[in-house]
């Protein structure tokens, strides 16, 4: 028996079994395992938690009901534990937290936890103000919507009593380094702290240079950068590293074709370790030359390994032009397509036109009417989606379009597909399944065109710039 007791006493809290998420539960389990908590103490704590839950259920139902659905009860319980976790985790050492569970009532721990969560929420609100003020003025939808809309929704709706563990916001903008293990307001605080670091870094660069970089980046990836999910900080940091490796200033984001070619040759000749050394040196130069916050340096260093691997793979597969953004001549400059908002029809005008189209007696009349009245890609798309044409009428309309109109339509409709392949290969191999009726007609119409015509249209597609196909 004494031997057994000795063995119990030697057991330690297994830190590997404790996670930030559900810390209190982990402490109860590990406290029992290590013999630091008795079964009576564990039972007392559990019953204390249940009494808090019972009171909160009554508050939740505003005294109208003493029962709730299991989902609601679980949700409220998770919220209670989020608060106790907040306090106990803040104590540092698990043994200290277990000692606290022994000595303090769970209600007092909960009350202190709510206070901790409340303080974190106040800090988060302040951080949001800072982030909002340092926001980089770039037209990246996910970035702007996250800061302007999603984060305020979270700050308005966050409920620290019943839903403290919920991260009730659609945060689309990806950070360079995210820690999804956190939940609720602690996650949001960390997200904002990191976003603030990223903003601080990005603001060291000239805005015009950033906008140009984005434009070249969009062309490099064959996508509309405004609509895509990518991290601005990482793009700028990587480009700054490449610029430094080219011998330029860290704040210089422009890399010419000649600079790129020299750098690509150099990187292709380096081993992985040499690439790592080169990138580390470049990061050191950037950190020394820019006046950076001391928290920003480890954050930047945390992005290093991913860049090393990307460069290594791209060098191996001769695709560094997909990693280093070089200045690309805007071929689209010869193809300036302007869309005037004034050209877009109102809903009423569109409805009237639809009625007119339906009453047309012949295909020729319909096509003529559409060509006369419609002057915007938005309206063409609306009309096509409304199924106002039948069978051969689609082909008649597409025949009436010029090469540029067809290229614009293809670029807009096959946005995802044309990011990865040419129009020629997409049309010859592309499936018609999962497409609307007019799109199937469009694919068939393009498939009937000869290869030369398709290649010529493909050139138009490549020359078109998404920035000029604004849907604002």
């Amino acid at each position, binding site marked *: 028996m004494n031997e057994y007791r000795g063995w119990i006493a030697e057991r330690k809290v297994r830190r590997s079994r404790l996670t930030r998420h559900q810390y209190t*539960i982990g402490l109860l389990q590990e406290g029992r395992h290590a013999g630091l908590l008795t079964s009576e103490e564990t*039972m007392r704590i*559990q*019953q204390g938690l*249940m009494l808090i*839950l*019972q009171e909160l*259920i009554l508050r939740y*139902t505003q005294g*109208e*009901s*003493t*029962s*709730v*659905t*299991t*989902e*609601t*009860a*679980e949700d409220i*319980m998770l919220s209670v534990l989020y608060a106790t976790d907040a306090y106990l985790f803040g104590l540092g050492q698990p043994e200290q937290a277990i000692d606290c569970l022994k000595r303090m009532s769970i209600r007092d721990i909960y009350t202190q936890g709510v206070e901790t969560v409340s303080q974190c929420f106040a800090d988060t609100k302040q951080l949001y103000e800072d982030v909002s003020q340092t926001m980089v003025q770039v037209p990246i939808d996910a970035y702007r919507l996250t800061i302007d809309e999603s984060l305020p929704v979270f700050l308005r709706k966050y409920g620290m009593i019943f839903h403290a563990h919920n991260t009730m916001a659609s945060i689309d903008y990806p950070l360079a380094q995210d820690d999804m293990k956190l939940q609720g307001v602690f996650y949001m605080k960390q997200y904002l702290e990191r976003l603030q670091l990223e903003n601080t870094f990005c603001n060291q660069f000239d805005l015009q240079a950033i906008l140009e970089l984005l434009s070249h980046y969009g062309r490099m990836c064959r996508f509309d950068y405004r609509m895509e999910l990518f991290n601005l900080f990482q793009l700028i940091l990587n480009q700054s590293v490449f610029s430094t490796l080219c011998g330029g200033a860290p704040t210089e984001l422009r890399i010419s074709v000649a600079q790129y070619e020299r750098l690509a040759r150099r990187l292709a000749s380096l081993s992985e370790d040499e690439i790592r050394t080169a990138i580390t040196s470049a990061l050191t130069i950037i950190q020394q030359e820019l006046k950076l916050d001391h928290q920003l340096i480890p954050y930047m260093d945390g992005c290093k390994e991913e860049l090393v691997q990307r460069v290594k793979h791209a060098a191996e597969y001769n695709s560094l032009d997909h990693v280093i953004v070089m200045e690309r001549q805007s071929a689209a400059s010869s193809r300036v397509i302007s869309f005037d908002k004034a050209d877009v029809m109102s809903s009423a005008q569109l409805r009237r036109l639809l009625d007119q189209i339906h009453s047309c007696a012949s295909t020729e009349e319909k096509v003529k009417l559409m060509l006369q009245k419609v002057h915007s890609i938005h309206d063409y798309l609306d009309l096509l989606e409304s199924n106002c044409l039948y069978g051969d009428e689609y082909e008649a309309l597409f025949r009436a379009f010029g090469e540029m109109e067809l290229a614009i339509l293809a670029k807009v409709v096959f946005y995802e597909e044309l990011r990865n392949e040419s129009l020629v290969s997409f049309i010859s191999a592309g499936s018609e399944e999962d497409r609307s009726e007019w799109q199937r007609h469009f694919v068939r119409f393009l498939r009937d065109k000869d290869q030369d015509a398709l290649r010529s249209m493909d050139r138009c597609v490549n020359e078109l710039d998404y920035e000029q196909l604004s849907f604002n």
Partner: protein
Amino acid sequence: MFWPRIFQSLHASVPELYTDELLGLNEQTRPYGVALTEQEIAMIMVARDQVLQSYGRVELGIDVTKEMVEQFASSAYVEQESYAETLMALHEIFYNLKNETEDRINDYQLIHMMKSLYEEECAGSIDLLQSRLEAYAEQCRVEAMTNDNDLEGDDAAWHLKR
């Protein structure tokens, strides 16, 4: 998961307390000729836990059971022989209704409505009570849906009602 076990353990940890509370109510109900034994209380508690589990609900405490005892003991249709069984059936109807009405009606209103229907329209028939309340739940759902549709279709109303 962890929680259903914890919720169950709570019920399991306090049966003596619940039994004492319910036995204490016998003083009030004896003038109406009904009382619960310890065994019957244990049966009611088991049945209640099963009903809660099958309807996916959590109740901490026995306020609903106590209110039912207090209300239904005085019914002219409740007899000592079937008293415990009636209470068990009433629990099932009650928690089903809570779910079916999506908690739109509060506990006390619902128990009082059950009592009133049981006494008057249903003349002590549990089956009839169940069917009446199912019709009521259906009516509640239709009304809720109509209200939701009204709110969706009318921005001004939405703002006002919020």
